[in-house]
Structure formats: structure tokens, C-alpha cells
């Protein structure tokens, strides 16, 4: 390495190196340069995304903690609060899928209990290439096993998720995990270092050389060599994290803490400097005092290690022994490594020898922020101009006597619409005894013990929509998430967003990012669901190019009355089936086009907020008045698929007749937004109509729960039991 290019090995640019020398008034030493390298990486500094993220709505009556802390917090009444956040672990999962996914789960769980909340649920949002590829099958199986391995062991149920396959994720899978925690508002903790002289302590696992430079690794594209990028991968220890979680929550309850922060990406340096920055303080520490499991580690290595299952805590002076006692009881280390100072500097020693001295401001607050240029991608014109109407007309000529039964079967046994039970049955989704609506329905519902309240949880995003129209695609993700919560009887409260994109230095990718953020902002504004936190993951590219833009929306909703929890399954013979909203000729970007015609293109469905809100309000009102028995969001695969899903749960049939001008494939498979399929006792229909007539939602009775088959007009008639067996067998069959 030539002397002039030292910054390159730390992932910094020449200009950034200039900024550092100017800020310090001298050249940084090797350790200091390493500190800047990780702190100014995309992963820690959000340097390419911050400007755009500022446009997201973050305020609301229930928001107790917005973006900026480890996780957001919302008020759910009765002095209780919910903390939640989503986090990506894409690159580690690409090279070591089991451990990558497992440590992703471990990291997001730490973010939640750091806030003082007990983790009560996990969700996972997964993207892979197509399963006909051997390596994709390996990634898929190992990622699922890794999420299971960590979540099951630590005893936090994984209650919902989504799984989507497309060649665009070949080589760069997405593994996003969301955690939700419950707490008393009085236990809210923050990641702040305050109070001159207060001790700074490292607690939890011992530090090793694992994961050094993981944050920089996450801020770079995957290359052929990445597989050999050994130090960036860690092995998780859910057993130890369970102990760490219990010890940390016990410690928080004592009130002895000023601040607590988990050590995730960029380890000790990031946690200490961020805590100091929030408290407008300095920190002085000696790396020799950090408990280690390897010999001869340099300060650089100790500062940058990403060893898992560790926390940094700042107790009040004199509480050191209490901290040690609690951690000892749980079989964990706790060591004082330094103290809070008033000079605004991070000062690092090694056995008393100065190793680094950097102003916190320069390291954290003054990290560069770039206003990148976006540029509308060239591919869009062609794809959006693709006319599904013309295409279908042409197809019609060639395809006489379409067998819609067969098309439905083909859709339901395709990878994206196939049943996902073989995934979520690998997750313990019941531990903690709160899961009232299990995975498989629109949203999971958890009870809150001791109260008659419940929480509804979902994650949603259609990356293909976002590829065809990032802004509306993102809006639809928010709307769908809210709709999923409403269908289960909950009022949507707030959002965490996991923004997964390609290389932001590519103007076309940056444009996707900007548009998607604008879409989220608009939809969250309209639906009154503020964003309380999230995660940005750039550089999701493989030699084959960027992934679909994938802004994942995690949403939390509240049920004031748990007895109103509603699932998507038809219940009783004879019940009426009603469709809220309206079906249009909207097959652009649909599963139908992809699966049946191998096409990706067209205009994605419209989103009309007046209709969306009307449909959601009507559905929620009807649930609250006890009028309806099931509600199901009509999404990917359209009406036919949604009806089948409603039939499948309790193995009920349905007779459905819809008067329509639409082509059969449009009626059956169009993915128009703002639609919900409900079922209700005929007795309640009059009362429901009264409600519905006052609403702008639009609705029509389309049939009845009846028999053992699903019959739609004269187009489709399928045996439910038989199709259900095929639907559930499809995914396992693709793997073996």
C-alpha cells in the first residue's frame, strides 16, 4: 500500500480523507483512520440517504420515539409502549446464509431490548433468486434455518413475514428481520452517554476478531471475492443473547443506567461515539480493559470487532458493582473500560498508551452527507408502455379455450403464491403464549397479557411493482400493509421501513431510491402512519445488476378489543361473501403476467387514497361492530387467489358470481388495490349495507360460502382440499 492511498483500505475517498485531516488538524493514525472508515461508511453514516430520508413523516400523537435511536417507540395506552424496527442482513447472508440470517435476527432483537422493551415478536422479509438454481435453494434453506435457529432458541416467536422470488435477487438475497417489543413507558431507555465521570462498561460476550469491517462490507457491492471475505462473517450465539437480554432488562429495571446501546455494526467504536454524540459528551476508554477471547488484539481490532451479543452501558457512578452482579448472575462479563468526559472527544488508550483521539463531532455529526443525483432509468419507458390490454388481445387469438382452472392451479403452485407454511412451521411462532392469529393470515395478532388489547403485525413490499414504478410501488406497500392490519381488526399505527436498493452512486438506482422514499412519505402521510425508524441497505447488486428496488414496510397496529381479532378464513356454510372496493383491468406487473406469460411490464395498479381509506374504514368499522367473520386483503394473484386463500383455512368452498365487463383474466387475476373480501352472516347484511352505503368504498355481494369447491362464474371450479394439498406441496417440491 502506498502511503498516499491509506484511506482506500478503509473505504474512504480522497476528499473524505482531506476532510478528516482538516478536521483533526493533522493526519490520522492507522487506528483513527479505521474509526473514520467505519463511522463514515454508508451503513453507519447514511451519507447517501440522509438527505432523502428527511422527507419521511415521523411525527404523530402516539410517537414516543422517532428515528434516531436504536428503535422507534409508540404509545399504546395504559402506560405501555411498543418498540419496533426492521434491519437488513443481506450481504452476510449471501456468503454465510445460516449465520448471516441468524446474526441479523440477533442484532434486531438487541436493538429492541436496548430500548427497555421485552421482544415479543419477530417478522422476516426474504427475497431470493429462483429456486431452480441449486445455490438459491441452498441460500433459501439456510436462511430460513438461520432465522429459526436464532429466534426459536432465544424464545421470541416469528409470527409473520413474506417471501418473494425473482431472478433479480440471484446472487444478492435480501434478509430483513423486524422485531417488536413491549414495555412500560417508565422503562424507556436511550443510548446516551451523559454525566462526567460516569463509568463506561462493556457487558455480554467477550470480544474476538470476528466481523472486523462488517459495516464497510455492507456498504460495498458483492463481488466474486466476497465469498472469501472471511472476517465480515460472525457466528451468533442465541443462548448467550438470551442471557444478555434477561440481564439487560433486569438492569434497566433497576434505574441505575444513564444509557445503553447494543454493539452492532462497527462494534465498540460506533456504540461509544454514538452514545457520546447523543449526550454531547466525550468518552475515554482503554481497549486493554475490554474482555477478550483472543490474544494480542490491537486497539484497532478491539474498536472495530463486530463480535455479537455485547452491549455498551453507562451506569451512574457507584453502580458498577450492581451491573457486575447482575451480569454475573446471568453468567456474563461486565467490565469498566472507561468513563464519560466533558471534552467532546473519543480518547482511546491501550494499557494507558494513547491510541486515538478524535472529536466526536467530526466522527459522528460531521460525517459527510451527499446529495446524489438521480436519473429516471431508461428501462422504464419500454416497460411502462407495454400494454397489457393489447397483449391480452393478441394472446386471445392464439389461445382459444383457456382453461382458467389450470391457470389458477399454475398460479397457486408458483413460488410466490405457493403456501408458505413450510417456512413458518420452521419458526416457533407460539412461544410466549401470545399468538392469537397465527402466520398464514393477512397479519399476525398478538394479545397483550393482562389487558384486553392486541397488536397486529405485518411486513409487505412488492419489489416488482417498485421496479416498474418505485413511487407508486412504495405507496402500495404502505397501503397493503395497512390493509393487512385492518383486515385483522387493528388500527394501523406506525411504520418501520427497510429500504433495500442497489448502488446509490448509480443515478438510476438513486432515482429509484428517491421516488420510493417519496412514495412512502406520501402514503404514510395519507394513512397517518408515521415512520418511527428503519434501515437503508444499498449496494445490493451482483454481477447481474441491481436488485428490484425493495422498500419493505413493517407496520404495527393496535386492537383496542382483542375479541375483534379477525382472520382471513371463511367460517360457515351459507355466509355471504362481499367484495369491498372495485376490480379494474389492472394486470400490469401482476403475478398472472409473470407466471402465465413470463412477462414483467405494464402499468402497475392505481392507488386512490380516497377509496383506500374508505375501504379500510368500512372494514374496520364492520369488524368493530361485530358484523363480519373474515376479512382478506385481495393482493398478488387477484380475486381468484384471494378467494382460494379464504377458502383454504377451514376447507370451505364458495360459489361466486360477479357481473363484469372485464376480460375473464382481468376479473380473476387483476391486482387492483383497495379491495377486501369479507364474509358475514346473512343476518348482518342489512346492517352492513347501511354502513357501506354511507361509505365511498364501493361493495358488492359476490357469493356465498358453500360446498367443497370454489366456483367463480362459469370460469373456475376447483376442489378446495385437492388444490390446498397442491398449494402446500409446491414449495417443498421445488426444494427437493
Amino acid at each position, binding site marked *: 500500500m502506498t502511503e498516499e492511498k491509506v484511506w482506500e483500505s478503509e473505504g474512504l475517498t480522497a476528499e473524505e480523507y482531506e476532510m478528516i485531516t482538516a478536521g483533526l488538524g493533522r493526519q490520522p493514525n492507522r487506528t483513527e483512520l479505521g474509526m473514520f472508515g467505519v463511522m463514515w461508511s454508508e451503513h453507519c453514516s447514511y451519507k447517501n440517504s440522509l438527505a432523502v430520508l428527511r422527507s419521511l413523516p415521523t411525527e404523530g400523537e402516539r410517537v414516543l420515539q422517532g428515528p434516531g435511536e436504536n428503535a422507534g417507540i409508540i404509545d399504546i395506552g395504559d402506560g405501555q409502549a411498543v418498540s419496533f424496527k426492521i434491519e437488513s442482513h443481506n450481504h452476510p447472508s449471501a456468503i454465510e446464509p445460516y449465520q448471516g440470517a441468524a446474526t441479523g435476527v440477533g442484532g434486531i432483537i438487541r436493538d429492541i431490548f436496548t430500548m427497555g422493551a421485552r421482544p415479543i415478536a419477530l417478522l422476516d422479509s426474504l427475497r431470493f433468486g429462483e429456486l431452480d438454481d441449486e445455490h438459491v435453494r441452498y441460500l433459501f434453506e439456510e436462511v430460513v*434455518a438461520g432465522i*429459526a*435457529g436464532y429466534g*426459536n*432458541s*432465544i*424464545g421470541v416467536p416469528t409470527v409473520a413475514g413474506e417471501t418473494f422470488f425473482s431472478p433479480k435477487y440471484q446472487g444478492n438475497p435480501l434478509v430483513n428481520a423486524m422485531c417488536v417489543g413491549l414495555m412500560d413507558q417508565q422503562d424507556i431507555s436511550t443510548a446516551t452517554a451523559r454525566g462526567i465521570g460516569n463509568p463506561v462498561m462493556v457487558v455480554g460476550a467477550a470480544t474476538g476478531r470476528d466481523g472486523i469491517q462488517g459495516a464497510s462490507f455492507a456498504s460495498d457491492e458483492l463481488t466474486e471475492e466476497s465469498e472469501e471475505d472471511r472476517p465480515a462473517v460472525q457466528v451468533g*450465539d*442465541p*443462548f*448467550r443473547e*438470551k*442471557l444478555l437480554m434477561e440481564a439487560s432488562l433486569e438492569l434497566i429495571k433497576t434505574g441505575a443506567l444513564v444509557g445503553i446501546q447494543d454493539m452492532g455494526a462497527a462494534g465498540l467504536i460506533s456504540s461509544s461515539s454514538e452514545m457520546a454524540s447523543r449526550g454531547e459528551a466525550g468518552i475515554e476508554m482503554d481497549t486493554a480493559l475490554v474482555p477478550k477471547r483472543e490474544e494480542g488484539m490491537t486497539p484497532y481490532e478491539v474498536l472495530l470487532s463486530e463480535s455479537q451479543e455485547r452491549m455498551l452501558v453507562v451506569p451512574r457512578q457507584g453502580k458498577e458493582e450492581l451491573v457486575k452482579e447482575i451480569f454475573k448472575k*446471568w*453468567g456474563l462479563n461486565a467490565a469498566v473500560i472507561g468513563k464519560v468526559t466533558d471534552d467532546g472527544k473519543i480518547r482511546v488508550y491501550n494499557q494507558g498508551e494513547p491510541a486515538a483521539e478524535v472529536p466526536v463531532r467530526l466522527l459522528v455529526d460531521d460525517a459527510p452527507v451527499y446529495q446524489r443525483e438521480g436519473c429516471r432509468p431508461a428501462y422504464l419507458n419500454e416497460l411502462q408502455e407495454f400494454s397489457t390490454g393489447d397483449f391480452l388481445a393478441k394472446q386471445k387469438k392464439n389461445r382459444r379455450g383457456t382453461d382458467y382452472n389450470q391457470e389458477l392451479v399454475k398460479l397457486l403452485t408458483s413460488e410466490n403464491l405457493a403456501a408458505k*407454511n413450510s417456512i*413458518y*412451521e*420452521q*419458526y*416457533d*411462532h*407460539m*412461544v*410466549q*403464549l401470545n*399468538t*392469537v392469529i*397465527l402466520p398464514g393470515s393477512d397479519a399476525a395478532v398478538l*394479545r397483550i*397479557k393482562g389487558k384486553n388489547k392486541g397488536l397486529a403485525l405485518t411486513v409487505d413490499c412488492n419489489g416488482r411493482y417498485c421496479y416498474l414504478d418505485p413511487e407508486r410501488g412504495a405507496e402500495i406497500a404502505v397501503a397493503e400493509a395497512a390493509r393487512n392490519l385492518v383486515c385483522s381488526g387493528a388500527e394501523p399505527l406506525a411504520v418501520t421501513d427497510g429500504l433495500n436498493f442497489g448502488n446509490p452512486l448509480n443515478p438510476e438506482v438513486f432515482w429509484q431510491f428517491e421516488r420510493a422514499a417519496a412514495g412512502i412519505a406520501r402514503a404514510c402521510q395519507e394513512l397517518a402512519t408515521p415512520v418511527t425508524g428503519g434501515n437503508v441497505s444499498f449496494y445490493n447488486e451482483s454481477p447481474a445488476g441491481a436488485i428490484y428496488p425493495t422498500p419493505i414496510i413493517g407496520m404495527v397496529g393496535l386492537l383496542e378489543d*382483542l375479541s375483534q381479532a379477525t382472520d382471513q378464513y371463511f367460517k360457515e356454510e351459507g355466509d355471504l361473501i362481499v367484495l369491498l372496493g372495485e376490480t379494474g383491468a389492472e394486470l400490469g406487473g401482476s403475478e398472472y403476467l409473470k407466471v402465465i406469460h413470463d412477462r414483467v411490464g405494464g402499468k402497475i395498479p392505481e392507488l386512490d387514497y380516497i377509496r383506500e381509506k374508505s375501504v379500510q374504514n368500512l372494514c374496520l368499522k364492520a369488524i368493530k361492530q361485530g358484523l363480519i367473520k373474515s376479512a382478506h386483503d385481495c393482493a398478488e394473484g387477484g380475486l381468484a387467489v384471494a378467494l382460494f386463500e379464504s377458502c383454504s383455512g377451514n376447507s370451505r368452498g364458495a360459489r361466486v358470481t360477479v357481473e363484469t365487463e372485464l376480460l375473464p383474466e382481468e376479473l380473476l387475476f387483476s391486482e387492483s388495490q383497495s379491495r377486501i373480501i369479507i364474509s358475514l352472516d346473512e343476518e348482518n347484511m342489512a346492517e352492513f349495507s347501511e354502513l357501506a352505503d354511507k361509505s365511498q368504498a364501493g361493495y358488492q355481494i359476490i357469493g356465498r360460502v358453500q360446498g367443497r369447491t370454489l366456483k367463480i362464474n362459469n370460469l373456475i371450479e376447483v376442489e378446495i382440499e385437492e388444490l390446498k394439498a397442491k398449494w402446500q406441496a409446491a414449495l417443498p417440491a421445488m426444494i427437493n
Partner: protein
Amino acid sequence: MKFAVISFPGSNCDQDVCHVTGEVLQVATEILRHDVRQDLTDYDTVILPGGFSYGDYLRSGAIARFSPIMEDVINYAEAGGLVLGICNGFQILLEAGLLPGAMKVNDSVKFVCRQVAITVESSETAFTGGLTRGETLQMPVAHQEGNYYIDPAGLEQLKADDQIVFRYLNQEENPNGSLADIAGVCNQEKNVLGLMPHPERASEKILGSEDGKKIFASLLDYLSSREES
């Protein structure tokens, strides 16, 4: 009446069991730490809950079995005390030799969490006295190592002594490939029971099934009639 639930490092169903016995069934329940020796004679039942004690590293239950309190559990069981092991608790009882046989990894080699149907094979224990032989119960399982194994002679012995307490209804319902569809066994004296399904997850209507509560109810009936006599 008083129950003890033993919490090992990595147990994660200790609070769940405590919720059901304490809140739902209203029996005084204490959670006892693994590392504190304790005279258990005052407790009417000792429950080893589910979870991943010591991360299930090496083999499920292998390390937990040597926790200090296990000596007390063994003494308690040998003196005729009632011991219930659920899932990981069952695995620990096997490792401790309080129950015969051993656990292998599921045939699928995967963790499995779902509702299964099991049948009651013996009503000769304190935990199943209120149930009828042949009765079907719906209960969730959640485990990766529930593939019960015992050698052929051992199996004959189990049958001869009526020690098979629960079986999965049939092969399809069997989530792990266990020998003879075994879901739960007891010791010869019938005071120690281990089972893979989680009765505490099926003890409240809102969670889908109350069949698990029948096991706890049997136990309570047994204990109160014992108190009376």
C-alpha cells in the same frame, strides 16, 4: 398446592408454564433457578419447561442435566414426587436417566412448530387420570429434536409396563419420526412424565385449543384427591 418450574439458562417456556399454572389454573407457582440447590419436598409438582437449555448445544438437555438443582429433582422423583417434563424438559429427563430412551434430531432435520393430534395411551398416571385411553387431543409441538428412540427390548418393556402415555395419532401427525409414534412416556413408577407437545400452549381458548389444560386439570384432580385422603 404449590408448583415449581425449573428455569435453566436458555429455558424459554418457563414463563409460559408459570402463566398457565399460576394465572389460568390459579396454582401457586414458583420459578426456581438451576444453580441453587433446593429441597423440593414442599412442592406438589416439579415442571421442567421447554426451551433451549444451554442452547441445546451438544445434545438437547445434555448440559442442563448436570445443573445443581437436577440432583434435587432426581431425589424428588425417586421419592415419588410428580415431575413433568415438557419438550426440552422431556429431553433433560431422558438425559438425566429419569425416563428411558433418547432423543434424536427430527427426521426432517428441521425445527417444526405446528398443531398435532395425539392420543392418550394410558390414563394410569397422575397427569392423565382424568383422560380416557384413546382420547384425541390437539396440541402444538415446537422442537428440532423430538425423534424419540429406544432399543427394541426397551420398547417391549415400555409397552408391557404401560409407560407409553401419548402417541401421535398416526404417521402423518407424527412431526418428527419418533419410534412407534411415541409423543410421551413415563417411568415405571408413573410419577415422572415427559412429552414433546406443549400442553401450556393449548390451555386457553383464545390460543386455539384447551386440550392441554385437560392434562393440568387431571393433575389438579389427582392432587386434590390426594390431599383429601
